[in-house]
C-alpha cells in the first residue's frame, strides 16, 4: 500500500528516512531500498540534511520509485527561492513523486558550507500553501499551470520543547500549516512518551495524522550529544542510564526504539524512523516492535 493510502486506511503507518551520501555513489541508498521494500509505507529522502551538501532528494526519490518504494520528497526553504522550489515540484510530479514534506531547513552555518548565502525566500507555511496552490493548478504568483500537480503534502512539528513559548508557537504554526494544506505531520525524535502524550492532547483535535519521530540510540555519547546540540531532542536520564548499563549497547538502542514505538502506538497514527546511518536495522526495529 502506498503511504497516503496507508495513512488514510487508519493503519498504524511506518515511514523511514534515508539520507543520500555526499557524491555520486548510490550503492548504499539502493541497498537500503532493497531492505525496506515491503517493510515500510513510505521513505523520506532528506534534502541536504543538516545543511551538508550531498546528492539531492529529487533524484534519490526517483531511484526509490524505480525500486518500488513510495518516497516522501523532503524540501527545505534554505537553498532555493520560490522559482526553483516550484520548478522542482513540477520536476517531482513528472518523476512520479506523490508525497512532499515541507521544512524550513537548518541554517547554513550548521553544515559544511557555512559561508553559503541562506535563501528562505518563502517559509515552510508558505511552501505548504504553494504546493496546495499547485495542486489546484496555479503557481504561487497565480499563473495557471499546464498540467497541475497532485501531491500529498506534509509538514513537521517539534512536539517536545524547552520553553512554553516554543511549545505554543509549534502548535500555532502547526495549525497554520494545516490551514495552508498540510495533510500529515512527522515529528522531531521522541524519547519521552508522557511529554509526547501532553503534546498529542493539544494536537489531536486538529484531526491530521501525526507520525512520531524515532531515532534509535547507538551509544551513550550520541544521546548526550543530541541533548546538548539538537534542538527539540531530549533523551531522558533513565534511558541514558539504561544504555550505559547495557552490555550490547547497539542492541539495547534498537530495543529501546522498539519499546518507544509500542508505547506510542496508541497515541498517534504512525512512526517515522530516522536511523541516521542505521537504515539497514529498520526491519529489525520493526520486528522487535511487533510491526513486521
Amino acid at each position, binding site marked *: 500500500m502506498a503511504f497516503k493510502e496507508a495513512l488514510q486506511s487508519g493503519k498504524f503507518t511506518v515511514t523511514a528516512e534515508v539520507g543520500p551520501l555526499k557524491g555520486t555513489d548510490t550503492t548504499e541508498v539502493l541497498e537500503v531500498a532493497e531492505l525496506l521494500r515491503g517493510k515500510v509505507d513510505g521513505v523520506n529522502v532528506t534534502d541536504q540534511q543538516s545543511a551538508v551538501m550531498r546528492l539531492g532528494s529529487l533524484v534519490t526519490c526517483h531511484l526509490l520509485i524505480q525500486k518500488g518504494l513510495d518516497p516522501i520528497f523532503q524540501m527545505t526553504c534554505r537553498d532555493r527561492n520560490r522559482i526553483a522550489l516550484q520548478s522542482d515540484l513540477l520536476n517531482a510530479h513528472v518523476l512520479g513523486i506523490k508525497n512532499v514534506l515541507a521544512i*524550513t531547513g537548518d541554517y547554513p552555518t550548521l553544515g559544511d558550507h557555512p559561508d553559503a548565502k541562506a535563501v528562505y525566500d518563502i*517559509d515552510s507555511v508558505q511552501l505548504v500553501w504553494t504546493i496546495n496552490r499547485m495542486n489546484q493548478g496555479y503557481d504561487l504568483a497565480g499563473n495557471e499551470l499546464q498540467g497541475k500537480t497532485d501531491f500529498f503534502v506534509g509538514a513537521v512539528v517539534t512536539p517536545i520543547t524547552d*520553553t512554553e513559548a*516554543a511549545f505554543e*508557537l*509549534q502548535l500555532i504554526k502547526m495549525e497554520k500549516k494545516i490551514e495552508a494544506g498540510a495533510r500529515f505531520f512527522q515529528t522531531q525524535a521522541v524519547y519521552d512518551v508522557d511529554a509526547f502524550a501532553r503534546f498529542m492532547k493539544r494536537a489531536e483535535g486538529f484531526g491530521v495524522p501525526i507520525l512520531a519521530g524515532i531515532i534509535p540510540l547507538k551509544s551513550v555519547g550520541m544521546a548526550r550529544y543530541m541533548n546538548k546540540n539538537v*534542538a527539540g531532542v531530549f533523551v531522558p536520564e533513565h534511558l541514558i542510564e539504561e544504555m550505559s548499563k547495557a552490555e550490547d549497547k547497539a542492541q539495547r538502542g534498537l530495543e529501546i526504539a522498539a519499546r518507544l514505538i509500542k508505547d506510542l502506538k496508541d497515541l498517534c497514527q504512525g512512526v517515522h524512523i530516522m536511523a541516521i546511518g542505521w537504515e539497514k536495522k529498520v526491519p529489525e526495529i520493526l520486528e522487535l516492535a511487533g510491526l513486521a
Partner: protein
Amino acid sequence: MVRSEQKPFEEILDYLEGTKKVFILGCDGCAQASQTGGWPQVLEMKERLEGAGKEVTGCTVVDFLCQKALVASRLRPLEEQVMAADGVLILTCGIGVQAASAVIKRPIFPGCNTVPLGGTRGEWMGAERCLECGDCLLYWTGGICPLTACSKGLINGPCGGASNGKCEVSKEKDCGWELIYQRLKELGQLHRLKKFIAPKDYNKMRPRPEILSTSLWALEQRD
C-alpha cells in the same frame, strides 16, 4: 536617515477593525522629514480616523521615536490618554515602531512602511533593526521585526531550532519568535500569530530608481 511611507489608509483601517479608541504617535526625526509622521501628518491622520468613526484619545510627536528613554519620558505625562486607547497607531519607520512598542504597554499598529534606501541608513539607537522591507509586518508580531529578529527572516512562525529560547544560529542571540510570542502574550494579542502571511514581495526591498537617484546616477542614465 530612514525613509518611510504611510501605509494605505485601507490597510490601517483593516488593522483597526474592532478597535474603537486610538492614540496616535508621530516622530519628529526621519518620519517628519519623510512627511509621514510629523505634526501635520499626525493631525491629518487624527481627522481621517475620526472621519472613519474612531475615537482618538490623544496624539503627540516625539523628537526621535527610536530613542526608547525619550519616548518613555515624553509619554509619561500622556499616560492616561495612551492607556485609554485600545491601541497606538505609530507613524514612523520600522525602528521607531519597534522601539516605541518596546516601551508602550498597549497593542500597536504600524502606520508606515519603511522603504529601502539601498544601503545607506541612519544610525540606530538600540537593539531594533529594520531591513527596510517596504511592507511592514510589525502589526502581526507585536512590534518586533521578524525579518531581523529571526535569523532566517521567517514570517509565519519559528523554525524549531531554538534551544532554551536561543537561536539555532547563535547561542548569544534570543530566538526572535520566542520574543514575539512573549510580547504578544503580554498584550493578550496571541491571536495575531494565527494569521497566514503570504510570501513577501521582495521587489519592495529594492530601492526604487528615484530613491537611488544621485547626480551621478542621473548622469549614468544619459547616453
